[in-house]
Structures are given as structure tokens and as C-alpha cells.
């Protein structure tokens, strides 16, 4: 994300500036995991301090301790020089510490103002919302956080909901704001807006802890960086100006990381998948897909970009036969496959890497063997005279274990005991071993560590080379732009436009265009705007 340039470095964040928070020797254990292992963390007055680490490094846990949600097993916390001992988030809020969680803590059926007033002592009894609507409107103006106070939260976009969360904390007079992976749900332009707001807050003397696993963002916004790896601090309070991307990556992963994918040139073949004017409803019975069309050819990776919840999930389900489409059709190699069954798809060579690995992707209590034969057991050699030949099945599972590097004592182990990366390899092994003609991959790298992500990317690219058609649905824009040959952008169940990615890879203009489409501007409109400006 080269568009996010460093703008300011706050001069007050010099060595020796007043300390806002000091956490010393924090230990927090969960059943079977040491999430924080004697962690020290220091936050200064008026700084943006990034907490960097891979998924599972213990970032959220550490900040939940600071925000009063978890109690540490040992360790001390000082806020503005005084020892504190929070027993609930209320105590933390009183001390000026507010946390915005990864999953927003907003009541969907209530209005923006109601959400902001929640848990406060005022008003005492009667809710005079009109009066408070004005206060909220003023506050949102002051920090450039545009949102309608009377709107119900469920009506808001994810970006707007995040603004409500920030307003909630500002209204409480928070001067230490913790944001847990705030950019994960935002389009690029919204990220810019968020960064502006954060800088405005720092200018008013507040401090911000910015949790992220994205190096570019951290370099763009942070004054200092603390890196966590497997529950331990590997770098404490580095000056962001004096460090490099490579250095941070090494601290975060524990080894050198190559920021480069070996994507060979490929000429796409025949059309494999055609989605034509598909409409479908979501679980609540609301329209999720509104006449969506796209196609994928053999030997290409087609990305589908979009902010979460715009119909990505439903589209993947319609293609794989897990959801009915109410209109339109899905054609695979010339044959209609929608509204039939998942089995029809499987028999025609559709493979599916689902978003939900433990609910849909695997049966958690079954063994690795059982899980990898799930798409093969109907056919010989595993099926013999209507019985399962477990010897063949075990041999098959062991072969996959070797070739896909699944780290597990033996193939009889239930898959619920596997780590996220290994679990995903089990799914990939099963799906790829069926030699699919179409692969639908939904968030295939979410929650994985860097090593596992590299592995998944390599597998997807090798499938592309061997001629499979791949539809890659992801919320990680960087991933989409580096892997895909073309990227469609989905918004409210419609395709806003398509961007081709040539041999040169992605460009900043491309990111801007995709970002605009992600927030609902159709491609024609963007092109028209550009044309007018050029005249």
C-alpha cells in the first residue's frame, strides 16, 4: 500500500516524554496456550504506538488485559504513574482507557446515539435522545467522523460502525485508545480517513495503540512499534523512522521473509465457470446477490474483492451448490450446476476452500484420514463393494500428509487438534487431490501465519499453472492484487467492475480504482470522472 505515506511524526514523542501506560511482566494463559509470556509494554503521551505480530501472537490478549476484560496471572500495570488493578472494562474506561475490538461491540438494533450513551450514568432515567443526538453530531464533526446519530447501527456500513466505536470512546473522554486491527474491515480510502482521524486525535494529546499484522500500515501510521511473537516481545518500542520493513518482518516472523511471488505468465484457456445474473438471499431472507455475473477461465486466478458482507459468502455457496439461487444460473463447462446439489458440483470437478474451516471445511472430531477422503470415498480404490477400504484410505492420507507438509503425529489424529495452518493444508490437500477444474477459495489465508500464507499462495499458483480455473474471494486486497490475473469488485451483491492485472503487477491507480468500487462507485462512473478531469 504505497499510497499511505508517512505524513507527520509527532515531535512530542521524544525520548523521555511522559509515560501513559507501563505494563510489566504480564502473563496470561489460556487452556493449553501461554498467550502472553512476561510481556512489557510502554506507551508514551501523544504517540501512535503499533503493536505488531502475526495472528495468534497474543496482541489482542495483551490489550484485553489493559482494557480490563482479562485479568493477568501476574504482572503490574501503571497508568499515568499509578498502579491500577482493573476488575472490569468499566474501571479501565474510568482510567481513560478505551478499546475498540476486532469485532465491533455495538448493539445492532439500537441507534448510534443509544450505543454511545450505553453504560453511562447520564441521562439518569428518561432518554431524551433528541438532545443527545446534537451532542453526538457536534462531536462527530469535531473529529471528522461522519455518521448520522439517529441511524440504527445495523443500517450502517462497517466503516461507519467503526466511527461509532471511536465516537463512543471520545464521548467517554478516553485519552488512551486501543484499536484492534482497525483496518481489516476497511476499503483503502476509508483507511486514509481513519488515519486522518487518528492523527487529529494525537494532535489533541491522546495516545493510540494500533494493533496490526500489516507491515505497510504500521510503517505508515506509527511513531513507535512493539513486536510480539508467540506471546513474547521481540522488539520493544522501536522508532518507526529508524527501522525498515524487512527488520520488522524478521522480528515478527523470526526469519527473513520474501515479499515476492513467483507468478509465471499464463494464457488463460476456455471459460470454465460462468455466473449469469445470479440472485440469492442471505440467511435472514434479504437479497444478498442482485443479478451478479462473472466468468473464470481455465488457468487463471480471478479475484473477488469487496468489503466483508457484500455477498461474497452467498456467491461461493451458490457456486458450490450450498445455497439456492432465486434467479439466473451458474454454468460449469457448459452444464448448469446451480440449484442441484453439492454432490453434482463435486462430481463435475468443483472444489471449495470454505471460509469456515471447522464448521464447513472439516469435521473437527474426525481423523485426518476421514477428512481427506470425504470427496473420494464413493469411488474406487477407497470404495470397494460398498465398503471403505481403510488400508487404501490410510495410505492415501499418508501420501497427502507427506506432499502437503501436514504436521501431525499420525493420520488418525482428530483434525480439531491441528493448528490453523495445518488444518488449511488438510483442506487444500483434499480439494486439490481431486484434480478440480474449478476451485472456489474463500479467505484461504485468513488467520494463518506468514509461513502458512506463503504455502497457500504457492499451492494456488501451482493449480493455476496446471490449468484449473480459480475464483479467489478475499478481503486482503494485497493478496488479491498479487495473485490474480483479473479482479472483480463486489458491492451489495453486484459487480462494480473488473480490473485486469498485467505482467507488471498492480499499480497505485489500480488500488484507488478498486477501493472506490469497494465503496460502491461503479467502474463506468470512475472512468467518466477521470475523462472529465482530463478534458
Amino acid at each position, binding site marked *: 500500500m504505497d499510497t499511505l505515506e508517512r505524513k507527520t511524526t509527532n515531535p512530542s514523542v521524544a525520548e523521555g516524554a511522559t509515560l501513559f501506560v507501563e505494563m510489566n511482566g504480564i502473563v496470561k494463559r489460556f487452556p493449553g496456550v501461554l498467550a502472553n509470556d512476561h510481556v512489557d509494554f510502554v506507551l508514551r503521551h501523544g504517540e501512535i504506538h503499533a503493536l505488531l505480530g502475526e495472528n495468534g501472537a497474543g496482541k489482542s490478549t495483551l490489550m484485553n488485559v489493559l482494557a480490563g476484560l482479562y485479568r493477568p496471572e501476574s504482572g503490574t500495570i501503571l497508568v499515568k504513574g499509578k498502579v491500577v488493578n482493573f476488575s472490569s472494562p468499566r474501571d479501565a474506561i474510568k482510567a481513560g482507557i478505551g478499546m475498540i475490538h476486532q469485532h465491533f461491540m455495538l448493539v*445492532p438494533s439500537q441507534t448510534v446515539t443509544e450505543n454511545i450513551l450505553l453504560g453511562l450514568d447520564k441521562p439518569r432515567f428518561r432518554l431524551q435522545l433528541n438532545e443527545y443526538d446534537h451532542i453526538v453530531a457536534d462531536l462527530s464533526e469535531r473529529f471528522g467522523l461522519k455518521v448520522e446519530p439517529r441511524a440504527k447501527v445495523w443500517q450502517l456500513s462497517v466503516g461507519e460502525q467503526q466511527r461509532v466505536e471511536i465516537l463512543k470512546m471520545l464521548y467517554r473522554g478516553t485519552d488512551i485508545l486501543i484499536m484492534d486491527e482497525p483496518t481489516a474491515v476497511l476499503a483503502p480510502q476509508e483507511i486514509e480517513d481513519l488515519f486522518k482521524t487518528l492523527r487529529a486525535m494525537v494532535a489533541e494529546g491522546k495516545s493510540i495503540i494500533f494493533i496490526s499484522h500489516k507491515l505497510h500500515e504500521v510503517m505508515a501510521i506509527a511513531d513507535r512499534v512493539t513486536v510480539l511473537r508467540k506471546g513474547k516481545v521481540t522488539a520493544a518500542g522501536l522508532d518507526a523512522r529508524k527501522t525498515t520493513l524487512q527488520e520488522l518482518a524478521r522480528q515478527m516472523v523470526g526469519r527473513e521473509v520474501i515479499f515476492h511471488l513467483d507468478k509465471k505468465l499464463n494464457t488463460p484457456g476456455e471459460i470454465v465457470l460462468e455466473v449469469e445474473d445470479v440472485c440469492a438471499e442471505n440467511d435472514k431472507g434479504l437479497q444478498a446477490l442482485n443479478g451478479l455475473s462473472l466468468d473464470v477461465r481455465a488457468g487463471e486466478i480471478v479475484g473477488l474483492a469487496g468489503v466483508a458482507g457484500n455477498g461474497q459468502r452467498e456467491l461461493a455457496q451458490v457456486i458450490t451448490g450450498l445455497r439456492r439461487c432465486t434467479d439466473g444460473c451458474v454454468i460449469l463447462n457448459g452444464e448448469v450446476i446451480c440449484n442441484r446439489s453439492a454432490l453434482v458440483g463435486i462430481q463435475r470437478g468443483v472444489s471449495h476452500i470454505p471460509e469456515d474451516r471447522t464448521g464447513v471445511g472439516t469435521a473437527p472430531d474426525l481423523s485426518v484420514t476421514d477428512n481427506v477422503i470425504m470427496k473420494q470415498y464413493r469411488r474406487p480404490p477407497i470404495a470397494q463393494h460398498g465398503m471403505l477400504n481403510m488400508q487404501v484410505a490410510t495410505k492415501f492420507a499418508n501420501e497427502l500428509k507427506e506432499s502437503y507438509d501436514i504436521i501431525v503425529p499420525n493420520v488418525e489424529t482428530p483434525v480439531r487438534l491441528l493448528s490453523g495452518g495445518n488444518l488449511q493444508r488438510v483442506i487444500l490437500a483434499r480439494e486439490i487431490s481431486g484434480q478440480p477444474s474449478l476451485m472456489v477459495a474463500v479467505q484461504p489465508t485468513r488467520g494463518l501465519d506468514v509461513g502458512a500464507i506463503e504455502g497457500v499462495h504457492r499451492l494456488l499458483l501451482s493449480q493455476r499453472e496446471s490449468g484449473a480455473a480459480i475464483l479467489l474471494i478475499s478481503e486482503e486486497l494485497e493478496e488479491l492484487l498479487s495473485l490474480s490475473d483479473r479482479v472483480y469488485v463486489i458491492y451489495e451483491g453486484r459487480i462494480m467492475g473488473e480490473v485486469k492485472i498485467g505482467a507488471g503487477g498492480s499499480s497505485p491507480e489500480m488500488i484507488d480504482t478498486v477501493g472506490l468500487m469497494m465503496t460502491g462507485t461503479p467502474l463506468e462512473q470512475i472512468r467518466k470522472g477521470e475523462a472529465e478531469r482530463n478534458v
Partner: protein
Amino acid sequence: MQAIINILQAGVASGTVLLFATVGELFAERSGVLNLGVEGMMLIGAMSGYSVALATGNPWLGVLVAMLAAGLLSQIHAFIAITLQADQVVSGLALTFLGAGISLVLGEGLSKAGTVSLLPSASIPLLSQIPFLGPIFFKEQSYLVYIGYLFVPMAWYYINRTRPGMHLRAVGEYPAAADALGINVYRLRYLYVFIGGVLAGLAGATISLAVSPGWFSEMTTGGQGWIAVGLVIFAQWDPFRAAVGSYAFGALRRLILDIQGPTMLLGMRNPFYYNPYWGFFLQMLPYAFTIIVLVIGSREAVRKRLGAPAALGNPYIRGERGL
């Protein structure tokens, strides 16, 4: 005409029972706790209210004790569902059996124990003169019926227009969000389960001390607690709709009872009088309705569409995965 007025007038009184029980359950469910023990709590209320009124001669004291006793009983469910985080359906069913058991044992012999002074009734001066509606709603009704009229708008206002009501809604919709802002989810849930119990107790006392006075063991409530549970879903968790449903069901109950009385109906031989099976069929209808509503309402997707509190039936565990 007069017959219709009489039926509806009795229907409003009988609907008041359902009203208290339904709105009570509505409060508990709005906080996220499903309490299927309404029937048991009503029985406790009916029994203890009746026996205290009998012993002291003061029916109001009976009402008070009924409310406290049922409220106390509800706290067993609260403890199991909120603190022990067990299955709320199972615990609620157990509460029904427990409440019925206790009240049958303690109420043994109560039905023949003599007469009790009932709750007073009154007519409202001007309002009772309104043609048709006046006599139905404002003539010779028990004080509790009038309390019911005031109670509904107050409950609505409390839930939708006050700070504690806003907290109640938040706790039932998204307890983690409420907790993160320092609202004590457990305490509020205990409180509203208690209020649900208190109101179920009031409903029970309304039966035994006003609407159909006396103690007839489990026939006193006759399954009205279950109808109340169904009505909450039917009312989509709104007090005004709950009131409409309660009065409609109260009237239906009276109609079903009264229609079996006369030998002639609309100038014809009354089939409900001569053939008891017709009567049984009619009596079954409210329960059939309840079963249908409960079955439909037990489907997650349907409940969502009806606007059920999102966290209904889920215990809250702080810091659970996916927080």
C-alpha cells in the same frame, strides 16, 4: 348483545392474568433469558396468594406474598441459567415441575379451607358509560385489571424510552457490548428474571384472588403459563402487542367456556352443549395455538425475523472465543 358484552367483560379480566405473565416473561426474554417456568411460578403465586389471604384476611397481602414467592422461585432458574450457564430450556421445564410440585403439596386441603375475602372491584365513573366499550373495560372490574391498563404503557415506556430500558435491550441483544461498557450483564439478567417471576406470581394471584377465585390445584392455572410463553413470541417482544394478544386470548377462553352453557345457540340446538367432544375440541384450541407458535418460534431464522432479542437463550461468558 348483552351476552357478548358479558363475555368480553369477563374476557378482559381473564386476559389480565395472561397480560401480567406475558409481560413478565417479556422482560426476562428481553434480557436474554428464556424462562419456560412461567406455569410453575404462576401456580406458586396462585397458591401462596390464596393461602395468605385466607390466613390474614387481607387479599393485598396475599398478592404481595404471591409476587415475592414466585420471584424467589425464579431465582433458581436465574442461578442455573446465568451463573451455571446451563441449558435454559431444560432448567425452565424443571422449574415448571418444581413450582407445580411445591404448590400442590403446600396447597393440599386449601380448596376446602373456607372462604376468602377477594380483591375489590370498581367501576370507573364516566368511562363506564361509553356505549359497548365502557361496560367491557371499565365496569365492575377488579382493581388489578385497571393496574394492568396502566402497566402496559409503562412497560413500553420503560423498555424503549429510559436509560435502564436501553441497558435491558443491550444486554439481550449483545451482552458482550454491554459488558465492554461496564454494564453488569449478570446482575441485570438476574434482576429481569426476578421481575418476570414477580409478574408471574401476580398473574397467579390474579386468578386465585380475583378472576376465578379459589385453589383448584394445577387446574387453577390450567396451562395459562404456557400460553403466556407463546404470546411473547406472538407479540414479537412488544408490550402493546402482548396486551392485545392477552385480552384476545382471555376473551377466547371465556367464549369457549360460556358457549358450552346454553342449550340453544342462535336459535339452534347448541352442538357444544349436547356433544361434549365439540367442547373438548374448542378447549384444545388455545393450547394448539401455543404449540404451533412455540414450534415455529423455535426456529432460529424465524425468531430473527420476528425480532427476538439476538442473545435470547445464550448464556453470557465473558471473554469467550470470538469476543
